């Protein structure tokens, strides 16, 4: 292990659901993977190997769901490395272990998990952070690993990384900034320390997913907020949009297996569209609406 408690905790999350122990180390990593089945601008996938290239010069090699090797310039801090290891590389690691990483932030809901999906910038993390100020326990930020190996009972493996918020979101929610997510480049984004304990990392059934939808552009006169359940094919379509880095998933698991896992999640999880205006002045009203809905289902 490279000695990062955060990375060790993230690996324990995956190891808790079986498979080989995960090792991490610093060492030489190739610039390209030979015989790549998918080659993106900043990643390659070849057989049981995944390579991530980061603009700061760092490269991460993930092999066989069990080994993470980091090759990076000496000046990069732990944070500047982990930001990428616990994001895209962790997603590839999860796929290699047969898991389904979903692009969800999440909170505990009774004896389960409720996740919030949506496009980048939809407010997943901000909403989850706001709920923590109302007493909810944060389960995951940005990405939630799902064990979909048991039909009808998808399990969420939460808590592999620390909550990140944009500067204005910390102000909106009223939470304290711990430190910037990057020290090598100026990005107005910060780690926020909420709910970082072992209990929050316990695997629990994934009970609900709320897809956050901006009501921008709706005709005048309609409802300001709307939560509607998606079933059957509609639920699958919603879930498909929540797959984390689907190109990784298709390359590592294959399209068929990816959709088999998705079907397990769709069959075992309630899926909702949560439509709301993306307006700061209506943010807390939206939190109220969601909290009422969570309470009704909790």
């Amino acid at each position, binding site marked *: 292990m490279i000695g990062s408690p955060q990375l060790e905790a993230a690996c324990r999350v995956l190891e808790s659901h079986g498979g080989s122990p995960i090792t991490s180390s610093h060492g030489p990593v190739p610039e390209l993977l030979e015989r790549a089945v998918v080659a*993106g*601008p*900043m*990643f390659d996938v070849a057989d049981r190997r995944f390579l*991530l290239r*980061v*603009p700061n010069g760092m490269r991460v090699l993930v092999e066989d769901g069990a080994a993470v090797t980091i090759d990076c310039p000496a000046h990069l801090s732990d944070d500047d490395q982990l*930001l*990428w290891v616990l*994001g*895209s590389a962790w997603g590839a690691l999860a796929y290699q272990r047969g898991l389904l990483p979903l692009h969800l932030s999440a909170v505990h809901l009774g004896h389960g998990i409720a996740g919030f999906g949506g*496009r*980048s*910038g939809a407010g997943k993390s901000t909403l989850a952070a706001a709920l923590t100020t109302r007493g909810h326990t944060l389960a995951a930020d940005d990405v939630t690993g799902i064990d979909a190996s048991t039909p009808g009972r998808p399990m969420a493996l939460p808590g592999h990384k620390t909550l990140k918020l*944009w500067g*204005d*979101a910390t102000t909106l929610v009223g939470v304290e900034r711990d430190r910037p*997510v*990057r020290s090598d*480049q*100026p*990005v*107005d*984004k910060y780690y926020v320390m909420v709910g970082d304990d072992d209990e929050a990392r316990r695997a629990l059934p994934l009970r609900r997913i709320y897809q956050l939808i*901006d009501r*921008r*552009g*709706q*005709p005048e006169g309609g409802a300001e907020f709307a939560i509607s359940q998606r079933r059957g094919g509609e639920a699958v379509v919603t879930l498909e949009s929540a797959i984390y*880095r*689907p*190109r*990784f998933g298709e390359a590592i698991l294959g399209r068929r297996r990816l959709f088999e896992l998705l079907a397990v999640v769709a069959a075992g999880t309630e899926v909702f569209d949560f439509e709301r*205006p*993306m*307006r700061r002045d209506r943010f807390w009203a939206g939190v109220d609406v969601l909290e009422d809905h969570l309470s009704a289902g909790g």
Partner: protein
Amino acid sequence: MTVTDQATRGGHDRAAAVRRLVWLASYPKSGNTWTRLFLSQFLTGSVAAVDLNAIELHGSISSSRPSFDEVVGLPSSDLTDDEVDELRPRVYEAWAGSSAGTSFIKVHDANRTLPAGERLFPASLTDCAVHLVRNPLDVAVSLAFHQGHRDYDRTIRQLNDPGRVIAGNRRSQLRQTLLDWSGHARSWTGERAFPVATFRYESLVADPIGEFARLVAFLDLDGADDRARVELAVAGTRFDVLQSAEAATGFRERHHWQGRFFRTGRPGEWRTRLSASQVTSVVDAHGAVMRRFGYVDDAGFPC
């Protein structure tokens, strides 16, 4: 008035397999959405009313954050805007490589060279560009409504700002560098590595059938010589039709602070909205380029 720059295709091998991208480029509020809706109607040959929220035009917007994240495999929200810029040509390579046919990409960026020396919109991927231009005096008015205010001094400062950027940082779209209005126009009309045809918004309004026929001919689209098909697509995207569609179904590109996205579309609104000093400010900054497009006369007066 018809304006065409670099519209010939001499020396640019259009048949090259990778050149599948058509850039639909404009400064904001210059008719880009209308043009995309027209092309959607034309290409589908649809006789049905236009569906504003399901534009059937293959291609995205150059500043799409979700597409960037998916292609690059890194979250753009954890990258700086400069880092994102340097990776954007790689995204367009992926789009060109994965596209079975032509993709029409909406662009508000100026056409520029990145700090590392690469072109933001590589000629090797490019079939051609349609450049839409609109009188900056009207753009100043339209932008103010789009931004939900009536402070035309503010929008004129934006038009006159050579370092003007929009979006980026935490916003839903990637950062786009516009330059000032003249710099933006010059960046597209000065392109020499691929064909660019410039269309004036005012000419599209005055003669939509003639101008859109010229546009589809430039793009060499199937059916480009079918006048009836052009007329049908123009009729399906008339401004009053778009306004009715927006009233009925909404339009996802409208912000909550805007009254309507399709507001008036009428050229010359600046005459009743802008003060003399505001007009002077725009003409002083952009007179040379405005004259080229017929927005000021030979004496330098706006017309």
